[in-house]
């Protein structure tokens, strides 16, 4: 194992934190619902998972409950935005603050508590023996592996199944979707709820593996970054994998490059420059039609 392999290995671990939240948000936005509450939901998932892992010692249970809590937050958001047709930006920001508040209350007694169990790396038989790649990709923890499956699966569902077409129809043109017999509200609910659940898993991954302790504001803006990543990946789960690992790489390499006397802050801006570049590219008419934002993103249905 050399330094570069370690760097790549760590980048993937760091990128996975972002990946779940990004995938969940892609799902929600594809159905037309913008959820700005990711940051808060991640925190909620993080403290839920951490607290449960301390009290029960079960990692699996912690992850599942963090997922469920994220789903609940998503449910709240969809109740406001889908059923009551509230403003998605306002609701999302409120959700972010609400969840952040709740998580710091819940986390009062857990600050500085050492973890009881953490998600340990599991070597995948055979695959982990592949030189170089084996270490980078296949000596990680379960949640990293799960992401390997979830991302392509989500892509497949969105682009290769009828359900996916229906989801995209809801996000692009809910009126037409409805007149084709698609239950727009139902789809938006499902996608937003699941999307919230994914953000919960992101949080769980954070406190169970990536930074296994609890402090307030543990997510440090990762929820907001995920929102930018959705744009950078142009609403595609597969591109999201690349984008998230790239962001993970930028995060990790900052520490490394400090030793090389490169300015780490300058390096820290690269992800954001990449996002701005991506936004400019997708705003070009032709490209927007192919990979742009869902047309009805952020708009309640029915309008008025």
């Amino acid at each position, binding site marked *: 194992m050399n330094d570069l392999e370690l760097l790549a290995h760590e980048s993937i671990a760091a990128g996975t934190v972002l990946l779940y939240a990004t995938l969940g948000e892609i799902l929600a936005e594809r159905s037309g619902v913008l959820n700005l509450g990711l940051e808060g939901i991640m925190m909620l998932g993080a403290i839920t998972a951490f607290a449960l892992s301390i009290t029960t010692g079960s990692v699996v249970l912690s992850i599942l409950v963090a997922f469920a809590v994220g789903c609940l937050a998503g449910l709240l958001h969809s109740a406001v935005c889908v059923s009551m047709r509230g403003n998605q930006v306002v609701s999302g920001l409120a959700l972010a603050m609400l969840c952040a508040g709740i998580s710091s209350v819940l986390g009062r007694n857990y600050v500085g508590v050492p973890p009881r169990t953490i998600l340990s790396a599991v070597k995948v038989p055979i695959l982990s023996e592949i030189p170089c790649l084996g270490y980078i990709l296949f000596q990680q923890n379960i949640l990293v592996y799960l992401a390997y499956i979830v991302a392509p699966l989500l892509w497949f569902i969105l682009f290769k199944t009828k359900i996916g077409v229906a989801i995209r129809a809801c996000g692009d043109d809910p009126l037409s979707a409805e007149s*084709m*017999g698609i239950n727009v509200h139902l789809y938006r609910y499902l996608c937003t709820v699941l999307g919230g659940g994914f953000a919960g898993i992101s949080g769980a991954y954070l406190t169970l593996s990536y930074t296994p302790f609890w402090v307030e504001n543990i997510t440090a803006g990762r929820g907001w970054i995920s929102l930018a990543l959705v744009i950078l990946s142009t609403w595609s789960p597969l591109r999201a994998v690349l984008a998230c690992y790239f962001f993970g790489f930028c995060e990790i390499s900052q520490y490394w490059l400090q030793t090389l006397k490169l300015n780490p802050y300058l390096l820290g801006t690269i992800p954001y420059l990449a996002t701005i570049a991506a936004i400019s590219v997708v705003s070009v008419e032709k490209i927007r*039609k192919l990979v742009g934002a869902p047309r009805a993103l952020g708009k309640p249905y029915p309008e008025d």
Partner: protein
Amino acid sequence: MEESYAVLMKNITKKFSSTVANYRVDFDLRKGEIHALLGENGAGKTTLMRILYGEIQPDEGEIFVWGKKTVVKSPSHALRLGISMVHQHFRLVDSLTVAEHLALCSSEVRFLSKRKIENLVAEYFKEYYLKVDLDAHIWQLSAGEKQKVEILKALIRGARILVLDEPTSSLTPLEVKDLFRVLHKLRNRGYAIVFISHKLGEVLEISDRITILRKGKKVATIPASEADPVTLAKLMVGDLPSPAKNTHTSPPGGEVLQVKSLYVKNDRGGIAVRGVSFSVRKGEIFGVIGVAGNGQRELAEAIAGLRKPVKGEIFFRGILVNGSGPRELARRGLAYIPEESFKTAVLPELTVAENSILRYYWRFTEKGFIKKTLVEKWAKSLIKEFDILAEGLHVKAKSLSGGNLQKLVIARELSSKPELLVAVNPTAGLDISASQRTREKLLEIKAQGSGVLLFTEDIDEALQICDRIAVIFKGSFKGLFSREEADVNKISLLMAGVDL
């Protein structure tokens, strides 16, 4: 309740704030019949059918489907009942492909396998000549092609009751013939079809019975065999307007538009316009006639500054304008009525008044601010002159009926005193008298010295008002006739791609 009634609507009343769109309307539809709905723009045809389709709920009245009293709660409920509606303004998702739409409508397809979808439509492609490129995205399709997708959708769904809201307004004579063949077949197989159209000839040809609405009320239901255009028009409006005549004979002036071997690409990247050259003179209506999807849209968009030509030159008032934007062209005196104007020429969320100045809003500003009183005065005069039915100046444009929205666009563009008007199917979706009035207005601005480039799919319209007519087929001009030498048969053959 007799079983042969597919649909029975009784006493339907629907009000939108101050407009009564339907008042105590009775409507029945039998199994195996084509029932036409006639009425002026804003008469309430679309509203009645949207009620049947569950999109809006009536204030009063009852609906029976196949003899059973039903409250149609939503479109998906309607679809389950076997009712399918093709909307006047298509309900297709721009970003999805044709195949994806068809997959949505089939209960068999779960995964998007190309082969499965091909199998699904093969039968319809063959039997009904409804061939469309399955991989194309909806935004790449012409209106005629979208129509086909809509009908395919309904057929795949297995609907037995089919509502077609102005299906022919975007189709060419040949396509209409194809559509009618489909409808005949469907009728003979026991489908029940509602057919909305403003074209009396079509209605008389295809339908078994005709129901006429006037200002929201039902006037009569008569068998088509007992009807003729004059009675129908009388029932609809009171009187049949005499057709506008192109009598203005003073020689046209200098060339306002010159197009020289122009090549334009379509959205799919293929060449849509191949080396077209022509010119439009002042005081002339130059007609371009052709089946939808033969490059009309691309040619019009290139001239309007919305699409960069690949090759060739466009001179507007003597100046090369390739690559000038639409605003610069508007300033120079270009007016433009696009195809599907409800999508690209109005902002549905803005008010009628705001929409009425979109093309030249800067004329209504004072020190950089829009002068509201000026705008209102302008909008009022347009509404009056073009007989636009709207609840007021400040209602959202999307609350207007399809035809009235079209009238608003026509009013705005024609009233700008253009040097050149480019109009793509301007009378699509207009009732007879509004179509007549529009043609009269075209003749009027021509008499005032404007040049008009009219894209149309209606041979009668072309012969009625154009001074010269070019036939477009697969992106090139196939023939150029002056009005005197124009001949219906020749033109239809050229439109179909037959070389003479």
